[in-house]
């Protein structure tokens, strides 16, 4: 009853139910974190497109269809993908950094709260926010690890074709190409799932979801 009353009072005076004022440091950082998550999502979309092009290039290459041209495009797209991957890594670090800053600022704000019940509610919300981000971070690391393996496989193919590029070498490369294609297909699927998780997590960070 007391909690409900506190929430009601907080709503009446314009405070969000987590006890933070509209201009609190943690809310400002949350805004930055949500923007950063948007940028991460954009980069992942670009990486998925580039990976799709690479899969088509590889498919054409293994069919020996305009092989030279497709190998050139494969190399070009792989370089672009490498560059986007580097941006993704930087962006993920930025999101992690902002998460740390947000939780630290939020925790500091709680320590200044005089009401015991409000402090408890907010601490529970902080714990939930930490758990939510930890789950997302685990997914980020898993997909990142798989992406590293896939990049290594694609780089190996690039080296292989660079040293020996003929109808015979293309034929010999089939098992490697098939493995890369299957991994890439899985990567596209996992990245879509990851982007879903980022989108949901972003809503919580922004405080627009009841899950916060």
């Amino acid at each position, binding site marked *: 009853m007391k909690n409900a009353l506190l929430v009601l009072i907080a709503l009446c005076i314009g405070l969000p139910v987590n006890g933070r004022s509209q201009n609190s440091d943690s809310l400002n950082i949350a805004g930055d974190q949500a923007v950063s998550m948007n940028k991460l999502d954009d980069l992942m*979309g670009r990486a*998925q*497109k580039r990976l*799709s*092009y690479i*899969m*088509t290039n*590889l*498919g*054409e290459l*293994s*069919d020996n*269809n305009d092989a030279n041209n497709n190998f050139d495009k494969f190399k070009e797209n792989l370089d672009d993908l490498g560059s986007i991957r580097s941006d993704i890594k930087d962006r993920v670090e930025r999101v992690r950094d902002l998460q740390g800053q947000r939780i630290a600022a939020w925790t500091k704000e709680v320590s200044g709260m005089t009401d015991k019940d409000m402090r408890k509610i907010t601490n529970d919300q902080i714990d939930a926010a930490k758990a939510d981000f930890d789950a997302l971070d685990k997914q980020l690391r898993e997909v990142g690890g798989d992406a590293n393996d896939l990049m290594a496989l694609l780089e190996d193919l690039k080296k292989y074709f660079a040293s020996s590029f003929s109808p015979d070498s293309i034929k010999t490369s089939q098992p490697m190409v098939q493995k890369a*294609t299957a991994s*890439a*297909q899985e990567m*596209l*699927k996992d990245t*879509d799932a990851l*982007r*879903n998780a980022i*989108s949901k997590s972003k809503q919580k960070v922004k405080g627009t979801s009841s899950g916060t």
Partner: protein
Amino acid sequence: MKIITRLALAALIAMPGTTLRAESLDKLVPDCAEILGRMKREDIINMDLVNEAKGIVILNVTGFSIGIGGSGGDGILMSKTEKGWSGPVAITTDGGTLGIDVGGTDNDIVILLMNNGAVSKWAAGENFGSSSASAVMGPKGGAAVDATMKTRDFNVYIWNKGAKLGVNFGGFDVNINNEANANFYDRPLVSAKDILNNVAEVPESKKAAVSRIYDLLK
């Protein structure tokens, strides 16, 4: 100078939208996957209704300045067959007011085709007059699907920089991008009908790229 400007303007006005846009399917497939992925992720599109649909159109429509060609769109059309979703058919749209009603210049559009007649109309490259079809904004993700939504011709979803717009649908032409289809399927005379009926299947080398769309449609 004045004459050169007039000539340039005349050339721009005379240039059909398809010449300006027509993309290859190798590029359209990942672009359309991105459009569909976003609509699904942001809970804009209703997946229960996708399961009921007989076909799907995924388009990016750009509005040009008034007097310089109306609007033009590039995208794909797919149908649901007994074997699952067909391969993509490359299409373009010209003119009309397909989602350009609130000053937006770059709209992502997904249209669920709810009956086989609607799929055939798109596959035939028809002109859609402003009152030629019953098209309504589809229900958002998670909303209950009722019989009306299943029986109307189209359920339309439009995304413009995060805004969910009202539907404005009609007065446009659909063109089948035969060149893009021939290149993608490696069959010079492949028809939209063959692709939509799975007579022409997605070549092995292209399957991996198309698989993302199939996964997103689940």
